[in-house]
Protein backbone atom coordinates (compact mmCIF):
# COMPACT_ATOMS: atom_id res chain seq x y z
CA UNK A 1 0.00 0.00 0.00
CA UNK A 2 1.45 3.30 -0.97
CA UNK A 3 1.41 6.03 1.72
CA UNK A 4 -0.99 8.17 -0.27
CA UNK A 5 -3.73 5.63 0.16
CA UNK A 6 -2.92 5.42 3.83
CA UNK A 7 -3.46 9.15 4.14
CA UNK A 8 -6.71 8.77 2.30
CA UNK A 9 -7.83 6.11 4.75
CA UNK A 10 -6.93 8.41 7.58
CA UNK A 11 -9.03 11.07 5.87
CA UNK A 12 -11.99 8.73 5.77
CA UNK A 13 -11.44 7.97 9.44
CA UNK A 14 -11.41 11.68 10.23
CA UNK A 15 -14.65 12.06 8.33
CA UNK A 16 -16.33 9.35 10.38
CA UNK A 17 -14.83 10.66 13.60
CA UNK A 18 -16.05 14.15 12.86
CA UNK A 19 -19.48 12.84 12.13
CA UNK A 20 -19.49 11.01 15.43
CA UNK A 21 -18.54 14.15 17.27
CA UNK A 22 -21.10 16.16 15.39
CA UNK A 23 -23.85 13.81 16.49
CA UNK A 24 -22.76 13.27 20.04
CA UNK A 25 -21.92 16.75 21.16
CA UNK A 26 -24.52 19.31 21.85
CA UNK A 27 -22.36 22.34 22.33
CA UNK A 28 -22.33 24.34 19.16
CA UNK A 29 -18.63 25.04 19.25
CA UNK A 30 -17.94 21.34 19.34
CA UNK A 31 -20.33 20.78 16.50
CA UNK A 32 -18.57 23.43 14.45
CA UNK A 33 -15.24 21.89 15.24
CA UNK A 34 -16.60 18.50 14.30
CA UNK A 35 -17.66 19.84 10.95
CA UNK A 36 -14.18 21.19 10.49
CA UNK A 37 -12.68 17.83 11.32
CA UNK A 38 -14.92 16.24 8.76
CA UNK A 39 -13.91 18.85 6.23
CA UNK A 40 -10.25 18.16 6.94
CA UNK A 41 -10.91 14.51 6.39
CA UNK A 42 -12.45 15.18 3.01
CA UNK A 43 -9.61 17.49 2.00
CA UNK A 44 -7.12 14.87 3.09
CA UNK A 45 -8.81 12.29 0.93
CA UNK A 46 -8.73 14.65 -2.02
CA UNK A 47 -5.07 15.56 -1.83
CA UNK A 48 -3.85 12.19 -0.68
CA UNK A 49 -5.36 10.38 -3.56
CA UNK A 50 -3.87 12.95 -5.90
CA UNK A 51 -0.46 11.70 -4.89
CA UNK A 52 -0.99 8.17 -6.07
CA UNK A 53 1.09 8.92 -9.11
CA UNK A 54 4.33 7.16 -8.18
CA UNK A 55 7.20 9.50 -8.42
CA UNK A 56 5.60 11.85 -10.88
CA UNK A 57 4.18 15.27 -9.98
CA UNK A 58 1.00 14.88 -8.01
CA UNK A 59 -2.19 15.84 -9.77
CA UNK A 60 -2.54 19.60 -9.17
CA UNK A 61 -6.28 19.78 -9.77
CA UNK A 62 -7.31 18.31 -6.39
CA UNK A 63 -4.89 20.67 -4.74
CA UNK A 64 -6.62 23.58 -6.26
CA UNK A 65 -9.94 22.12 -5.22
CA UNK A 66 -8.74 21.76 -1.67
CA UNK A 67 -7.59 25.35 -1.55
CA UNK A 68 -11.01 26.39 -2.74
CA UNK A 69 -12.59 24.07 -0.23
CA UNK A 70 -10.50 25.43 2.60
CA UNK A 71 -11.50 28.98 1.86
CA UNK A 72 -15.11 27.93 1.75
CA UNK A 73 -14.71 26.07 5.02
CA UNK A 74 -13.04 29.05 6.63
CA UNK A 75 -15.83 31.33 5.51
CA UNK A 76 -18.49 28.96 6.72
CA UNK A 77 -16.75 28.47 10.03
CA UNK A 78 -16.51 32.20 10.53
CA UNK A 79 -20.19 32.61 9.87
CA UNK A 80 -21.00 29.69 12.11
CA UNK A 81 -18.98 31.08 14.97
CA UNK A 82 -20.52 34.48 14.67
CA UNK A 83 -23.93 32.90 14.56
CA UNK A 84 -23.11 30.79 17.57
CA UNK A 85 -22.19 33.87 19.53
CA UNK A 86 -25.46 35.50 18.60
CA UNK A 87 -27.40 32.38 19.52
CA UNK A 88 -25.78 32.14 22.91
CA UNK A 89 -26.30 35.84 23.46
CA UNK A 90 -29.95 35.46 22.57
CA UNK A 91 -30.83 32.19 24.30
CA UNK A 92 -28.18 31.99 26.95
CA UNK A 93 -26.99 28.61 25.70
CA UNK A 94 -24.66 27.70 22.92
CA UNK A 95 -26.83 24.73 22.06
CA UNK A 96 -29.57 23.94 19.68
CA UNK A 97 -32.91 23.25 21.23
CA UNK A 98 -34.03 19.76 20.37
CA UNK A 99 -37.50 21.01 19.73
CA UNK A 100 -38.53 24.11 17.90
CA UNK A 101 -38.73 27.06 20.20
CA UNK A 102 -42.12 28.30 21.07
Amino acid sequence: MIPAVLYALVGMGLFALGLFALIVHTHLLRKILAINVMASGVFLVLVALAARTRGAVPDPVPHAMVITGIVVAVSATALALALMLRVSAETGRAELPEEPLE
Partner: protein
Amino acid sequence: MKKKSNKPKSITENGEREAPFRLLLAVLLSALAAGLGYAVLSLPSPPPGLSSHVAANLETSGVSNPVTAVLLNFRGYDTLLELGVLLLALLGVWSLGVAPEHHEPPPGPVLDMLTRLLAPLLILVAGYLLWVGAHAPGGAFQAGSVLAAAGVLLLLTGWRPGAGFSGLPLRITLAAGLGVFVVVGVVLMLLGGRLLEYPPSFAGALILLIEAAATLSIGTTLAALFLGGRPEAGPRR
Protein backbone atom coordinates in the same frame (compact mmCIF):
# COMPACT_ATOMS: atom_id res chain seq x y z
CA MET B 1 -42.71 25.29 27.72
CA LYS B 2 -44.37 23.62 30.62
CA LYS B 3 -43.87 20.09 29.46
CA LYS B 4 -40.17 20.36 29.36
CA SER B 5 -39.60 20.09 33.04
CA ASN B 6 -40.93 16.61 33.53
CA LYS B 7 -39.88 15.18 30.24
CA PRO B 8 -37.30 12.40 30.25
CA LYS B 9 -33.86 13.56 29.41
CA SER B 10 -32.87 13.43 25.82
CA ILE B 11 -30.61 10.60 24.88
CA THR B 12 -27.97 12.98 23.69
CA GLU B 13 -27.68 14.73 26.96
CA ASN B 14 -24.91 13.45 29.10
CA GLY B 15 -25.99 10.56 31.19
CA GLU B 16 -26.29 6.84 31.46
CA ARG B 17 -28.85 6.52 28.72
CA GLU B 18 -26.38 7.75 26.20
CA ALA B 19 -23.97 4.84 26.30
CA PRO B 20 -25.84 2.26 24.19
CA PHE B 21 -26.64 4.88 21.63
CA ARG B 22 -23.03 5.89 21.39
CA LEU B 23 -22.02 2.32 20.96
CA LEU B 24 -24.52 1.82 18.19
CA LEU B 25 -23.35 4.98 16.54
CA ALA B 26 -19.76 3.98 16.81
CA VAL B 27 -20.51 0.65 15.18
CA LEU B 28 -22.40 2.33 12.42
CA LEU B 29 -19.71 4.87 11.79
CA SER B 30 -17.03 2.24 11.81
CA ALA B 31 -19.00 0.42 9.17
CA LEU B 32 -19.20 3.63 7.21
CA ALA B 33 -15.50 4.27 7.56
CA ALA B 34 -14.75 0.69 6.61
CA GLY B 35 -16.98 0.96 3.57
CA LEU B 36 -15.40 4.19 2.51
CA GLY B 37 -11.96 2.74 3.09
CA TYR B 38 -12.85 -0.19 0.93
CA ALA B 39 -14.01 2.20 -1.72
CA VAL B 40 -10.71 4.06 -1.56
CA LEU B 41 -8.78 0.83 -1.85
CA SER B 42 -10.79 -0.23 -4.84
CA LEU B 43 -9.94 2.88 -6.81
CA PRO B 44 -8.29 2.21 -10.17
CA SER B 45 -4.60 1.74 -9.89
CA PRO B 46 -3.18 4.08 -12.53
CA PRO B 47 -4.87 7.19 -11.22
CA PRO B 48 -6.92 8.83 -13.96
CA GLY B 49 -5.96 12.36 -13.01
CA LEU B 50 -5.62 15.49 -15.05
CA SER B 51 -1.87 15.89 -14.52
CA SER B 52 -1.06 15.43 -18.15
CA HIS B 53 -3.71 17.90 -19.26
CA VAL B 54 -2.39 20.44 -16.83
CA ALA B 55 1.15 19.87 -17.91
CA ALA B 56 0.22 20.15 -21.55
CA ASN B 57 -1.51 23.48 -21.10
CA LEU B 58 0.80 24.99 -18.52
CA GLU B 59 2.63 26.89 -21.24
CA THR B 60 -0.32 28.97 -22.18
CA SER B 61 -1.61 29.46 -18.67
CA GLY B 62 0.63 32.37 -17.85
CA VAL B 63 2.14 30.82 -14.74
CA SER B 64 4.43 27.89 -14.16
CA ASN B 65 3.05 26.65 -10.86
CA PRO B 66 0.47 24.03 -11.84
CA VAL B 67 -1.67 24.62 -8.75
CA THR B 68 -1.85 28.32 -9.40
CA ALA B 69 -2.58 27.60 -13.01
CA VAL B 70 -5.50 25.40 -12.08
CA LEU B 71 -6.69 27.76 -9.41
CA LEU B 72 -6.62 30.95 -11.36
CA ASN B 73 -6.74 29.92 -14.93
CA PHE B 74 -8.10 26.47 -15.72
CA ARG B 75 -10.60 26.50 -12.90
CA GLY B 76 -10.56 30.21 -12.29
CA TYR B 77 -14.33 30.30 -12.28
CA ASP B 78 -14.37 28.21 -9.09
CA THR B 79 -12.04 30.67 -7.48
CA LEU B 80 -14.21 33.56 -8.55
CA LEU B 81 -17.22 32.02 -6.88
CA GLU B 82 -15.11 31.16 -3.87
CA LEU B 83 -14.15 34.78 -3.42
CA GLY B 84 -17.84 35.37 -3.53
CA VAL B 85 -18.29 32.89 -0.70
CA LEU B 86 -15.75 34.74 1.35
CA LEU B 87 -17.38 38.10 0.82
CA LEU B 88 -20.76 36.54 1.47
CA ALA B 89 -19.58 35.08 4.78
CA LEU B 90 -18.41 38.48 5.82
CA LEU B 91 -21.68 39.98 4.76
CA GLY B 92 -23.48 37.35 6.78
CA VAL B 93 -21.41 38.08 9.86
CA TRP B 94 -21.99 41.75 9.46
CA SER B 95 -25.70 41.26 9.05
CA LEU B 96 -25.80 39.55 12.43
CA GLY B 97 -24.92 42.72 14.20
CA VAL B 98 -22.24 45.02 15.41
CA ALA B 99 -18.93 43.54 16.47
CA PRO B 100 -19.13 42.52 20.10
CA GLU B 101 -17.13 44.69 22.37
CA HIS B 102 -14.40 42.93 24.25
CA HIS B 103 -13.14 44.64 27.26
CA GLU B 104 -9.79 42.96 27.20
CA PRO B 105 -6.95 44.11 29.31
CA PRO B 106 -4.73 46.41 27.32
CA PRO B 107 -1.95 44.49 25.58
CA GLY B 108 1.20 44.28 27.47
CA PRO B 109 4.35 45.90 26.20
CA VAL B 110 5.65 42.60 24.77
CA LEU B 111 2.68 42.00 22.56
CA ASP B 112 2.60 45.59 21.56
CA MET B 113 6.24 45.52 20.63
CA LEU B 114 5.95 42.21 18.85
CA THR B 115 3.07 43.44 16.83
CA ARG B 116 4.89 46.53 15.80
CA LEU B 117 7.71 44.35 14.59
CA LEU B 118 5.69 41.55 13.08
CA ALA B 119 3.05 43.43 11.21
CA PRO B 120 5.30 44.98 8.59
CA LEU B 121 7.21 41.74 8.32
CA LEU B 122 4.05 39.79 7.70
CA ILE B 123 2.97 42.22 5.06
CA LEU B 124 6.28 41.75 3.39
CA VAL B 125 5.97 37.97 3.56
CA ALA B 126 2.52 38.21 2.07
CA GLY B 127 3.88 40.18 -0.83
CA TYR B 128 6.55 37.59 -1.40
CA LEU B 129 4.11 34.72 -1.30
CA LEU B 130 1.90 36.46 -3.79
CA TRP B 131 4.77 36.99 -6.15
CA VAL B 132 6.27 33.56 -5.83
CA GLY B 133 2.92 31.87 -6.37
CA ALA B 134 3.36 32.11 -10.09
CA HIS B 135 6.03 29.45 -10.20
CA ALA B 136 6.27 27.85 -6.77
CA PRO B 137 3.89 26.93 -3.97
CA GLY B 138 2.22 30.11 -2.81
CA GLY B 139 -0.30 32.47 -4.19
CA ALA B 140 -3.15 34.71 -3.25
CA PHE B 141 -4.65 32.57 -0.53
CA GLN B 142 -1.47 31.93 1.26
CA ALA B 143 -0.53 35.54 0.98
CA GLY B 144 -3.96 36.63 2.07
CA SER B 145 -3.82 34.43 5.15
CA VAL B 146 -0.50 35.89 6.16
CA LEU B 147 -1.88 39.35 5.63
CA ALA B 148 -4.87 38.40 7.75
CA ALA B 149 -2.52 37.21 10.46
CA ALA B 150 -1.04 40.67 10.56
CA GLY B 151 -4.51 42.14 10.78
CA VAL B 152 -5.51 39.79 13.56
CA LEU B 153 -2.40 40.70 15.49
CA LEU B 154 -3.27 44.34 15.15
CA LEU B 155 -6.81 43.71 16.23
CA LEU B 156 -5.62 41.75 19.20
CA THR B 157 -3.59 44.65 20.33
CA GLY B 158 -6.70 46.73 20.27
CA TRP B 159 -6.28 48.50 17.00
CA ARG B 160 -9.50 49.28 15.20
CA PRO B 161 -9.98 50.75 11.76
CA GLY B 162 -10.56 54.46 11.90
CA ALA B 163 -13.87 56.00 11.01
CA GLY B 164 -12.52 57.18 7.72
CA PHE B 165 -11.59 53.68 6.71
CA SER B 166 -14.47 51.62 8.07
CA GLY B 167 -16.93 53.03 5.58
CA LEU B 168 -16.73 52.84 1.83
CA PRO B 169 -12.94 52.40 1.62
CA LEU B 170 -13.10 49.30 3.78
CA ARG B 171 -15.93 47.91 1.73
CA ILE B 172 -14.06 48.59 -1.47
CA THR B 173 -11.04 46.77 -0.13
CA LEU B 174 -13.17 43.84 0.85
CA ALA B 175 -14.92 43.63 -2.49
CA ALA B 176 -11.80 44.30 -4.53
CA GLY B 177 -10.84 40.65 -5.01
CA LEU B 178 -14.18 39.58 -6.36
CA GLY B 179 -14.64 42.87 -8.14
CA VAL B 180 -11.39 42.74 -10.05
CA PHE B 181 -11.99 39.11 -10.90
CA VAL B 182 -15.44 39.81 -12.28
CA VAL B 183 -14.32 42.92 -14.13
CA VAL B 184 -11.43 41.08 -15.75
CA GLY B 185 -13.68 38.23 -16.73
CA VAL B 186 -16.32 40.47 -18.21
CA VAL B 187 -13.87 42.72 -19.98
CA LEU B 188 -12.28 39.69 -21.58
CA MET B 189 -15.72 38.61 -22.63
CA LEU B 190 -16.46 42.01 -24.08
CA LEU B 191 -13.22 41.84 -25.98
CA GLY B 192 -14.48 38.80 -27.79
CA GLY B 193 -13.36 35.91 -25.65
CA ARG B 194 -15.20 33.89 -23.17
CA LEU B 195 -15.57 34.55 -19.53
CA LEU B 196 -12.06 34.48 -17.99
CA GLU B 197 -10.45 33.47 -21.24
CA TYR B 198 -7.07 35.16 -20.84
CA PRO B 199 -5.06 35.84 -23.95
CA PRO B 200 -1.90 33.79 -23.34
CA SER B 201 0.35 36.82 -23.65
CA PHE B 202 -1.45 38.73 -20.93
CA ALA B 203 -2.33 35.75 -18.81
CA GLY B 204 0.50 36.14 -16.34
CA ALA B 205 -0.11 39.83 -15.78
CA LEU B 206 -3.82 39.41 -15.44
CA ILE B 207 -3.43 36.60 -12.96
CA LEU B 208 -1.08 38.72 -10.93
CA LEU B 209 -3.51 41.59 -10.97
CA ILE B 210 -6.32 39.38 -9.82
CA GLU B 211 -4.15 37.75 -7.22
CA ALA B 212 -3.02 41.05 -5.85
CA ALA B 213 -6.55 42.29 -5.41
CA ALA B 214 -7.59 38.93 -4.02
CA THR B 215 -4.75 38.93 -1.50
CA LEU B 216 -5.79 42.32 -0.25
CA SER B 217 -9.40 41.29 -0.01
CA ILE B 218 -8.73 37.93 1.58
CA GLY B 219 -6.48 39.41 4.17
CA THR B 220 -8.92 42.16 5.03
CA THR B 221 -11.88 39.84 5.00
CA LEU B 222 -10.32 37.29 7.29
CA ALA B 223 -9.29 39.99 9.68
CA ALA B 224 -12.75 41.51 9.54
CA LEU B 225 -14.29 38.10 10.17
CA PHE B 226 -12.10 37.88 13.23
CA LEU B 227 -13.85 40.96 14.50
CA GLY B 228 -17.07 38.95 14.64
CA GLY B 229 -19.40 41.67 13.47
CA ARG B 230 -19.61 44.83 11.49
CA PRO B 231 -17.40 47.66 12.60
CA GLU B 232 -19.45 50.32 14.23
CA ALA B 233 -19.41 53.55 12.37
CA GLY B 234 -17.94 56.48 14.19
CA PRO B 235 -14.63 57.11 15.86
CA ARG B 236 -13.30 54.68 18.41
CA ARG B 237 -10.33 54.72 20.65
